[in-house]
């Protein structure tokens, strides 16, 4: 139960109002989007998508393609994390720039980049490769920020005495990384990796099915298979597709994440033995196997020993101190100056392009933002209404929890975007169908964060307080008001922050869709972005994308972060 609370917690840095750093970052983002839009001017007008076979026999191939994209993006994300996080943690000057940057980046709705990145890549690369790379880049951006934060935060919270011990015993960079930093961060990194993968599936399924106008950016994979099946109304294929997706997710969970978690239990920093360590049948089996044990003794240990010896010589302490002295700040200033000038020029050009957007379109963008905001709110409210009571029931009833938890986890692990074509198949017949299905998609993608957090919160209510409430003979309403809701508040806020981020992302695929050969759209900022992409109206694409980013970042700063701070300070149980 404790695990789910860790799973869906995004780290929030200390409260601060919008400052110069944020503005620089937002300008940087604007320049980036502008560059993408500029490239998009040369994008081919017609892009042919792949032909998707609905035969169940093709599913293993599609599944491995999807997994391959995820693995590639995740590998990139880990590499980025280790470099960026270490730089931020070990260099004061770098930290001042890198951490505010990360803070803004993690709040940006990544889907809003999807059209820009796809168009930009397809202008410079051949069609297939462009879509592949774009999907990997997007999944990377969806996975990387929380990993980087987790790594950075682990590095900066290593107990001082452990750090000093590694200095006193003269560990070099490698030994410190291997013996101190990586083990200390291991549990956090694994949980965040699981979270990143869950998020990654959501984006992958959307990226595999993305089509606008005459440009078909679809990629062969599980997402495209499900969409094609829904398009053709082939119920059998839908069932095969969902089955395959769920199977892939369960297999990854059982064969990768569970064993990793069980193995990582040794990296707990608490000195007291914990209860309920994570269990994994595979890990237990591997550990009790003589053959595996022999293999490790015979191959891994000597190899590790040789690697250590080599790296210890390679990065000798004396060499490091010598190198540390030779680093001069001037290349940093040079890069900073050039980068700053480039940024200014880009901002100027982006501004010119934005000025070309007529006032009436700005009005439409404003209405779109409001409409999407309302949908996000509706999804949040609906999610709260059902998850809070249910979560409290599950959380305060351990037997029910033991039975329901796995069911809920599996249901939650199916990425909502994969199911979206099927939702459309059912909902489009209803009046206001797309509007309803847009809210439903947001709901499907986000309600689980809330449910898991509420369950975790309800479990964490101290028993003494429950007894006290019973002894005071509080009525049901009084009990909710004085005990349950305040106790849940921090958990609900943490869940809602993640949930609202997910809902904004979903708007890009939810508000504008091509289904069964028809194009459907409703009013919303996601629809504006997609339509601008379809029509090739690049100034509008830039304006709409930036509007969405700024809105979401502003809401994060002005609403969520304040609530989070309140929750941290006032409603924390100790």
């Amino acid at each position, binding site marked *: 139960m404790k695990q789910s609370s860790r799973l869906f917690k995004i780290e929030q840095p200390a409260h601060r109002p919008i400052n110069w750093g944020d503005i620089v970052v937002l300008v940087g983002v604007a320049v980036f989007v502008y560059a993408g839009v500029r490239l998009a001017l040369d994008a081919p007008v017609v892009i042919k998508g792949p032909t998707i076979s609905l035969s169940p026999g093709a599913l293993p191939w599609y599944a491995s393609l999807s997994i391959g994209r995820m693995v590639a993006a995740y590998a990139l994300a880990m590499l980025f994390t280790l470099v960026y996080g270490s730089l931020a943690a070990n260099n004061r000057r770098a930290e001042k720039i890198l951490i505010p940057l990360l803070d803004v980046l993690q709040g940006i709705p990544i889907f809003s980049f999807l059209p820009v990145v796809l168009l930009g890549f397809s202008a410079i690369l051949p069609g297939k490769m462009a879509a592949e790379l774009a999907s990997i880049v997007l999944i990377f951006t969806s996975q990387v920020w929380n990993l980087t934060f987790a790594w950075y935060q682990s590095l900066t919270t290593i*107990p001082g*005495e*452990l750090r*000093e*011990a590694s*200095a*006193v*015993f*003269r*560990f*070099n960079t490698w*030994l410190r990384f291997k*013996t*101190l930093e990586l*083990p200390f961060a291991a549990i956090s990194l694994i949980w965040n990796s699981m979270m990143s993968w869950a998020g990654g599936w959501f984006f992958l399924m959307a990226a595999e099915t993305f089509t606008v106008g005459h440009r078909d950016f679809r990629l062969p994979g599980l997402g495209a298979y499900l969409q094609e099946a829904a398009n053709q109304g082939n119920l059998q294929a839908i069932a095969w597709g969902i089955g395959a997706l769920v199977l892939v997710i369960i297999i990854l969970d059982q064969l990768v994440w569970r064993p990793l978690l069980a193995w990582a239990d*040794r*990296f*707990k*920093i*608490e*000195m*007291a*033995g914990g209860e309920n360590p994570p269990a994994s049948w595979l890990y237990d089996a591997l550990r009790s196997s003589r053959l595996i044990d022999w293999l490790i003794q015979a191959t891994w240990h000597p190899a590790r*020993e040789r690697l*250590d*010896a080599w790296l*210890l*010589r390679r990065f000798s302490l004396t060499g490091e*101190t010598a190198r540390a002295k030779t680093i001069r700040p001037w290349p940093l200033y040079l890069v900073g100056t050039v980068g700053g000038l480039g940024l200014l020029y880009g901002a100027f050009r982006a501004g010119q392009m934005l000025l070309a957007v007529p006032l009436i379109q700005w009005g439409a963008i404003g209405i779109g933002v409001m409409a999407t905001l309302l949908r996000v709110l509706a999804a949040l409210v609906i999610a709260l209404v059902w998850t809070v009571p249910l979560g409290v029931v599950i959380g305060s009833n351990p037997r029910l929890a033991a039975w329901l938890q796995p069911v809920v986890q599996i249901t939650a692990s199916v990425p909502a975007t994969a199911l979206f074509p099927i939702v459309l198949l059912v909902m489009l017949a209803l009046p206001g169908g797309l509007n309803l299905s847009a809210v439903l998609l947001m709901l499907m993608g986000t309600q689980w964060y809330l449910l898991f957090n509420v369950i975790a919160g309800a479990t964490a209510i101290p028993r003494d307080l429950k007894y006290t409430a019973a002894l005071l003979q509080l009525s049901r309403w009084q009990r909710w008001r004085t005990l349950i809701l305040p106790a849940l508040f921090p958990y609900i806020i943490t869940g809602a922050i993640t949930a609202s981020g997910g809902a904004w992302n979903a708007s890009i695929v939810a508000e504008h869709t091509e289904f069964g050969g028809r194009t459907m759209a409703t009013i919303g900022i996601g629809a504006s972005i997609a339509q601008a992409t379809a029509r090739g109206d690049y100034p509008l694409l830039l304006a709409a994308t930036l509007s969405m980013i700024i809105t979401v970042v502003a809401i994060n700063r002005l609403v969520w972060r304040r609530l989070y701070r309140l929750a941290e*300070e*006032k409603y924390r149980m*100790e």
Partner: protein
Amino acid sequence: MTTNSHLLALQHVSQVYTSGAKRFTAIQDVNLTLSEGEFAILLGPSGCGKSTLLRIIAGLQRPTEGQVLYRGLPLRGVNPRSTIVFQTFALFPWLTVLENVEVALKARGIPPKPRTARAFDLLDRVGLDGFETAYPRELSGGMRQKVGFARAMAVEPELLCLDEPFSALDVLSAEALRGELLELWSGGNIPTRAILMVTHNIEEAVFMADRIVVMDKDPGRVVTELRVGLPHPRQRKAPEFREMVDRVYATLAGQTQPEHVELGTAPGEPGRTRALPHIAINDLAGFLEHLAERPTHRADIYRLAEELHVDSDHLLRLTEAAELLGFATIARGDITMTPLGETFAEASILARKEIFASRIRQLPIFKWLLAMLQAAHRHQLEWDVVQTALELEFPPEEAQRQLETAINWGRYTELLAYDDSGQVFYLEPGGVSSPGSAIRQNGR
């Protein structure tokens, strides 16, 4: 003796922190030498910079001024011939006992076979054979610290630095480990040439050291050095031992000064602002009641430590508070209650509040705070404003602790109140405390 015959020499070592335009001296002009064969102890109350000094000596930190000479040569970076045993053991929780010792050898590039053999031997010597494959979390505190010792011995340090190695242990294992350390040291089985240990525990210092370097705070500095000539094993009940303990207490507890010296000046004014000792009011009341039970209303401070089962650091904070508030006077290691202190000890709950209030009104820091509140709009001030003002006298962390203590005392006496959600101080209007105000918990 020339400088070169010393293993270690500190010359005019100072550690200064700057915070804004203000400079705070953590360590002031320390000169210290350590010779081969010596077991020296840095003793002082918390906040006197003794742990910082130890880190400077080990080379983990560079002093702002002055230099550290090791065997006559200035120290640059971590001293490869010294090592530290840490208060919280600093074992890697994910490594077994054996691996924890081995990793220190691995860092020195020793190949696997001799490495493992050495680690086994060291664990054997500290009495941990059989526990090699255990993880630290499976061990008791005392055993964990033994691993810490074995790991430190692994690198064969000439200079062994110990940072309060026994203070995180329970009484019995601490006592056992002290004996074992002395045995290792005096047995000559280890290549260590000198030991430097940090502690705030006066008895422990007298029990173990050849020489005690007594430090005091505000600013952190060496006040005196005492040589302990008693033969090992030392008897805590022996009169010579007690006399030594008494002497150290007398040095650290100081001598009650005339009131204007004792109270110091208000923040921002010239002169030293006296810091409030961080004590809970209940502790102080209990302490005074205990004193009042004695027929003469006076006591040897070192005896109080035994009677009250508090460590010397806590006890010295209590005597300091009693002295500052005029409830007791201190001279030559003895504490004597004043008539006011006697009245306080016998008073009712409400009367105690009155007495306490009248006393803290005399403290310059409270006078200053109350005057600022009087002058402020609606008699309210934000935490940040007060903290900034106080940072003229204290480093930020200490300023925060001072305010926390001030809130604690102010709430008890109903002189001032603090609203945690709005983070504002305000004057109690009618002297009635608001029942709903939550107590700010020291930053936890």
